[in-house]
Every structure is written in structure tokens, then in C-alpha cells.
């Protein structure tokens, strides 16, 4: 049962911070509520005041940054809005595909990307993908605004670098460079992924020039695995090529060294194995996107 609380419904960022200041800190922001209301219902959290962010125009909308054309997703944009966004479909199709499979349609209608990241659930799909995409979040508080890279932002399971009185106002994802492909794949047996892998590759002259790999649901938070990614660098950008196969085998072997956590979906051994399977599928998808952006 959701415990009783007082509600504030600010209509601007300024009002939001005023609302925060009017509490003694026993407060939480919420937008869709799909994460926070659930934990409150389960008795795992309780706040005197909940501050609704849905009426704040500054947190809405998806746009392309004027300078570098980065994708800027407002803090209260829902999963569903991302899933159907033309801009996102063009700039980052992998995110559309990912969002289309987050939880279920109701959660996607209600829940926000910002909320998902702030909650830092260890099995978060978007966090894993955005990590490989070199995304950052914009945090704003009374004291000002700061941008934090995702890997700096998520500090532990259910823990982030955000101060309680700071707001995540936007998620910013750099544009794809030429020859770049970004893909996300997961193995999922229940509601949440058993394991997920995201990869960003840049292809130049028929070979993989740069690679970034992140894994989710394997360790206690989604992490970048640079040594796994490094295995791909130099391989031919062709899934059928021998050097690619060797790179993949090498990358899988390196995944085997990760300190995985066993859970309901399987033992650490099985999950590392699965990560390797999913890595292969993600790498091939990233290669084909890279080819399209060549």
C-alpha cells in the first residue's frame, strides 16, 4: 500500500526547487512513478512530500542540440515518447528498439527515461545502452547545472551521483559519427533482462577502428568493459570474416573474467556465457548499422 504523503505540483523548475526548499528534505521527485511508487508500495521507501515533475515544461520534449546535433531527451520524457520519436528513430534507432521492449506498454506510457536512470536499477536496459553510447545526464540544482557521464552517474545499485535536491533535466547522447554503429541486445527470461550487452563500433576502411562495450545485469551495475571492447579493434568489419570471428572469441573469453553475480536467471558462469552470446548478436547488429552510416 502506498503510504500517505503530501503532494507538490510545481509548474516550472524554479517552483520545483521552491517546493523542495519548503520541505525538510523528506521529499522525492517523481514523474511517471513506475519505480518510486512501487518501492513505496513495498514499504522500502517513504517520503513526507512527493514533488510531481510532469507539469514542468523545461523537462519535456526531445530535440537535437544546436551545436553538435546531440540528442537531448528531457527529464520527464516517457519511454513511449522515445519509442515513437522520429528524431530518435533517425539518430539512434537502437534506442527505439530498446525502448519498445522495456517492461510493458503501460510502464512505457507512464515511466520516464530520466526516472529509470535516477533509480539505477541494476537491470536497467537504457543505462546499459547509454553507457556504451557515451551519453551524459544534465543535473540541475539550486547551485547550478552540471553534466555527468553515465558511468560517473551510476555509482552503485540504486545509487547515483545525483544529490537528493538535484533534478535530472536531460539525457544527452552524442550523435553518431560516420561509420559508427550502436546496438543493444539482451537475453530475457523474466520481466527484466537476464543479461544485456551494448556495443558502439566505428568502422574505418573496412576495419573496426574503435569499440566500446557495456554489459548490464551481469555485475551489480551496468559497466563499460574496455578490455572486451579492445578485442574488436582492428578486426574486419564483416561478421563473416575470420578476424571478426577471432575478435569475438577473444572478447567472449575476456567477458569470462568478469565478476558476475548469480541470480534467479542463472549462475555467474551461465550469465557470462549468455553475455558472450548476446555480445555476438549485438556486434553483428552494430556492424550493419555502421555500414549504413558509412
Amino acid at each position, binding site marked *: 500500500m*502506498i*503510504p*500517505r*504523503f*503530501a*503532494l507538490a*505540483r510545481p509548474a516550472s523548475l524554479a517552483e520545483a526547487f521552491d517546493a523542495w526548499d519548503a520541505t525538510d528534505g523528506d521529499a522525492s521527485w517523481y514523474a511517471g*512513478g*513506475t519505480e518510486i*511508487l*512501487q518501492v513505496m*508500495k513495498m514499504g522500502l521507501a517513504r517520503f513526507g512530500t*512527493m514533488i*510531481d515533475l*510532469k507539469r514542468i515544461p523545461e523537462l519535456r520534449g526531445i530535440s537535437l542540440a544546436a551545436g553538435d546535433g546531440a540528442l537531448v531527451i528531457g527529464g520527464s520524457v516517457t519511454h*513511449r515518447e522515445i519509442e515513437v520519436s522520429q528524431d530518435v528513430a533517425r539518430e539512434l534507432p537502437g534506442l527505439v528498439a530498446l525502448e519498445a521492449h522495456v*517492461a*510493458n*506498454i*503501460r*510502464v512505457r*506510457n*507512464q515511466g520516464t527515461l530520466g526516472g529509470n536512470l535516477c533509480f539505477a536499477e541494476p537491470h536497467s536496459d537504457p543505462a546499459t545502452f547509454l553507457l556504451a553510447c557515451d551519453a551524459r545526464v544534465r543535473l540541475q540544482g539550486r547551485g547550478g547545472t552540471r553534466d555527468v557521464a553515465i558511468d560517473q552517474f551510476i555509482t552503485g545499485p540504486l545509487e547515483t551521483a545525483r544529490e537528493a535536491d538535484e533534478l535530472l533535466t536531460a539525457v544527452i547522447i552524442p550523435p553518431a559519427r560516420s561509420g559508427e554503429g550502436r546496438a543493444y541486445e539482451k537475453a530475457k527470461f523474466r*520481466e527484466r533482462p537476464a543479461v544485456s550487452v551494448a556495443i558502439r563500433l566505428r568502422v574505418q576502411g573496412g576495419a573496426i577502428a574503435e569499440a566500446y562495450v557495456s554489459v548490464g545485469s551481469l555485475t551489480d551495475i551496468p559497466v563499460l568493459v574496455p578490455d572486451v571492447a579492445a578485442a574488436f579493434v582492428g578486426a574486419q568489419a564483416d561478421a563473416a570474416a575470420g578476424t571478426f570471428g577471432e575478435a569475438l572469441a577473444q572478447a567472449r573469453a575476456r567477458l569470462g573474467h568478469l565478476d558476475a553475480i548469480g541470480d534467479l536467471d542463472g549462475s555467474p558462469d551461465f550469465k557470462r556465457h549468455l553475455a558472450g552470446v548476446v555480445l555476438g548478436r549485438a556486434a553483428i547488429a552494430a556492424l550493419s548499422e555502421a555500414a549504413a552510416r558509412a
Partner: protein
Amino acid sequence: MPETIDITLSVNGLAHELAVQANVTIADLLRLELGLTGAKISCDMQVCGACTVLVDGLAVSGCTYLAVDADGREVATVEGLATDGVLNPLQQAFIDHAAFQCGYCTPGMLMSATALLAENPRPSRAEVIAGIDGNICRCTGYLPIIDAVLQAAEAGAQR
């Protein structure tokens, strides 16, 4: 105890002005205050869809959606699907295909399908499956439900 909040919302086209506690979910508001017990509570974790209602046309989990968040919005529930006692094509298709047994999932299933058909009036079989995949039915094995939604789409297209 925190005071109540005044909200206005329409439910199945009927306007309501209500004073609600902030922690009350839309499902509890409908079921306990407005006597609309169609939407059901089952998992209470946003996973089964028995509580599905539409807010401004979007399906949400009534068990985890605050009534105050529906302030100024239109809420649609299973009780609003039939007009003057006449079933709509989706409801009729559910009966034709025996797309339910115990019926506990049915109100939510119907509302998810309603949202799907409003957005995509001629869905493919795969799109129907994707549209109701977030709704659990423990009785039927789903196939009759999928067939019913497809029949309703067909009927909608012929009108």
C-alpha cells in the same frame, strides 16, 4: 495527516470533482469511491495488467498510477465500452471467441486492446501480440484473445 487535493477528471465521459488523498491510486478511486469495480487488482506490481485503464487514451497500470495524476484528464474504463447496453465490436468479439474464462483479466485486456486499436486500427497478428503482451491471462492460453482482437479490427475496418 496530509490534506486532500481537489481534482477534476472525467471518467467514461462523466465529469467528477473530487477531493482525494495524494497516495490514492486511480484503481482505488474508481473501485472504492466511484463504484466502478471493472478494473481489477491482481499483481499490484504493474506486470499483469488487470488494472489497466486509459488516461487520455494511454494505457496505464491503475494499481500504480496516482489519482491526482489524472487531474484534468479523461479516464476510460471497461464500464465505458458499451453504449446504451450495446456491446462494442471488441466486446462482442471477446464473447464470440470465448476470449475469457474467469474474466478477471478481461477488463484490463479489453482496455489494452482498445488502446492498441485506437492507435493501430488494422494491427497484424504480431502487433496484437505485442499490444497485449503486458497483460497476463492465466485461464485462456491467449489465442482466443488474439483472435478476438483481430476480429474486432476487422469489424472496425468494415464500418
